[in-house]
């Protein structure tokens, strides 16, 4: 059966509809399985799992019949292919993980299945989550379901990137081929694709969601988090993904609040920081205007905008692009052709390692492993790596100081709307600049959400970002929902499942 109206529901609406028995979990799963097939041209999924989705939905229907519904029962979800899923191919979008079927389940996905969620498949991403455009995947680039407005397409109708690294997750949610998705965010990999695809993406506080079973990129910066159509959906999904996990030594032993209950709509008296350093050179005028509009929306709802300074902002990107590759070069040492994935035979052990890793890693991963190896090597460790770690301390202090005066911070999510596939590939630094507004809260481990707030002149979605204090996702979500209500973002991409192109 095909019912486009099922695809248009939010997670909260689907949950309520299932509880009222307006439709069954199997009907919902079937509609989404078809949607996953329909959006194949976007390349958003690496491995769809339709049979598993139907079997999980069947189990949901049995629980619903017994009135034993779980919090996410029957909700069809895409899983970024960086989360290990037991017995299901897990690639990290890299050639080097060829054929890897994890013998275990990541903590976060295990929690989702324990909450009754239904797995639609594994979503495409940048290789090992290294990228801001989802063009570094071994399985090919993901296409953004949004296109330039028809009148602006003259001479430029190239497909656009969905952002990265969680580009498949974002494209699937935006194109109505997943009700929600898991992403991971190291320097912006949840928020920037959410902004580019017109959906909500939340990077929680570092330690809120377990990293256990998530393929490691940069361990001190990797954050699992939800990608959804609404702020309420993000609150619901975050609750199911969160919680202390003894198997991740950096998982925080803190209680998980009912985030949905924080969505009171009341932000009267909330102090909203507006960081002056985020008026970066070359920021487009329309993003500046949207940001100002966001300030006015929050002010109209009773919040108090406060000018703040985060003086270390301009140093966040070079700091990040030292620390993340350093950690990556260490984490990716495990891909050696011995225990899993690709092996290229050689005459000696070292030759096998070298040939395997040369064949298995794509250009961007290779570049970051080499940079990371360099900055960690004898003679350069102090000048680059230790220096970056010291600047990271200062960047974090900026936020600590700011949060003495404000309750959260409003900023743009990205310096531009989605760009064309193939753009910004000649110069790695041009690509890194995409992360200018998302990296600082990543380095400080702070919760930050991107909310779709408007369209660019070309008709592409633009997000605004709200950053909060550590473990204060509740204030972030409350302010984000007010922003969402004011923005009334109701636009749809040019390609959605059930709606044609």
């Amino acid at each position: 059966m095909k019912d486009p109206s099922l695809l248009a529901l939010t997670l909260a609406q689907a949950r309520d509809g299932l509880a009222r028995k307006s439709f069954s979990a199997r009907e919902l799963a079937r509609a989404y399985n078809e949607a996953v097939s329909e959006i194949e041209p976007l390349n958003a999924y690496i491995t769809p799992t339709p049979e598993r989705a139907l079997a999980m939905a069947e189990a949901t229907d049995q629980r619903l019949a017994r009135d034993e519904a779980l919090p996410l029962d029957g909700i069809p979800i895409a899983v970024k292919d960086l989360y290990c899923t037991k017995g299901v191919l897990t690639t990290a979008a890299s050639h080097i993980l060829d054929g890897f079927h994890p013998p275990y389940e990541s903590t976060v996905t295990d929690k989702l299945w324990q909450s009754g969620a239904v797995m639609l498949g594994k979503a495409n991403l940048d290789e090992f989550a290294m990228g801001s455009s989802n063009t570094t995947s071994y399985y090919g680039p993901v296409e953004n379901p949004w296109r330039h407005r028809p009148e602006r397409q003259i001479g430029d109708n190239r497909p656009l990137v969905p952002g990265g690294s969680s580009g498949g997750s974002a494209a699937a949610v935006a194109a109505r081929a997943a009700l929600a998705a898991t992403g991971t965010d190291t320097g912006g990999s949840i928020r920037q694709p959410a902004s580019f695809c017109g959906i909500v993406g939340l990077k929680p506080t570092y330690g809120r969601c377990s990293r256990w079973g998530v393929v490691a990129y940069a361990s001190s910066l990797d954050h699992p988090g939800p990608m959804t159509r609404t702020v309420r959906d993000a609150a619901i999904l975050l609750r199911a993904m969160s919680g202390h996990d003894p198997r991740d030594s950096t998982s925080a032993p803190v209680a998980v609040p009912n985030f949905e209950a924080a969505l009171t709509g009341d932000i009267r008296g909330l102090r909203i920081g507006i960081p002056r350093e985020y008026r970066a050179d070359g920021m487009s005028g329309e993003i500046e205007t949207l940001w100002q509009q966001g300030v006015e929306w929050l002010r109209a709802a009773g919040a108090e905008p406060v000018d703040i300074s985060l003086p270390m902002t301009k140093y966040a990107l070079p700091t990040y692009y030292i620390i993340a590759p350093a950690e990556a070069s260490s984490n990716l040492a495990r891909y050696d052709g011995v225990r899993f994935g690709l092996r290229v035979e050689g005459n000696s052990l070292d030759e096998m390692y070298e040939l395997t890793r040369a064949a298995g890693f794509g250009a961007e991963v290779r570049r970051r492993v080499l940079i990371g190896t360099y900055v960690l090597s004898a003679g350069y460790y102090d000048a680059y790596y230790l220096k970056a770690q010291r600047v990271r301390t200062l960047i974090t202090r900026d936020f600590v100081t700011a949060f003495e005066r404000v309750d959260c911070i409003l900023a743009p999510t990205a310096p531009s709307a989605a760009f064309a596939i193939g753009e910004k590939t000649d110069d790695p630094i041009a690509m890194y600049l995409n992360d200018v507004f998302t990296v600082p809260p990543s380095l400080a481990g702070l919760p930050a959400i991107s909310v779709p707030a408007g369209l660019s002149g070309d008709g592409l979605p633009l997000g605004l970002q709200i950053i909060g204090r550590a473990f204060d996702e509740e204030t972030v979500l409350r302010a984000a929902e007010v922003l969402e209500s004011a923005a009334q973002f109701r636009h749809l991409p040019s390609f959605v499942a059930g709606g044609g192109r």
Partner: protein
Amino acid sequence: MALDKATVAQIAALARIRLSEAELEPLADELLHILTWMEQLNEVDTSGVAPMASVAATGLPMREDLVTDRSCRDEILANAPRTARGFFVVPKVVE
């Protein structure tokens, strides 16, 4: 600073990634470009500032030294490119 072909070859050897001779020069240019961009951090006075390895506020948690996993040798070996008699197989390392 300088980053020549020999340095790139040396980094690649440390990282165990085989590079062809033709790849060294473009990579040297590319890495130099990125490293030069990173040197703007030298503008920041970090004297007396402690390096930050993690934002996690707590130290490493301790746990009982117990076996927490069941035997899963065959499941693990199932992903290996080559195995024999319950072991991973690698090229000969002892002459």
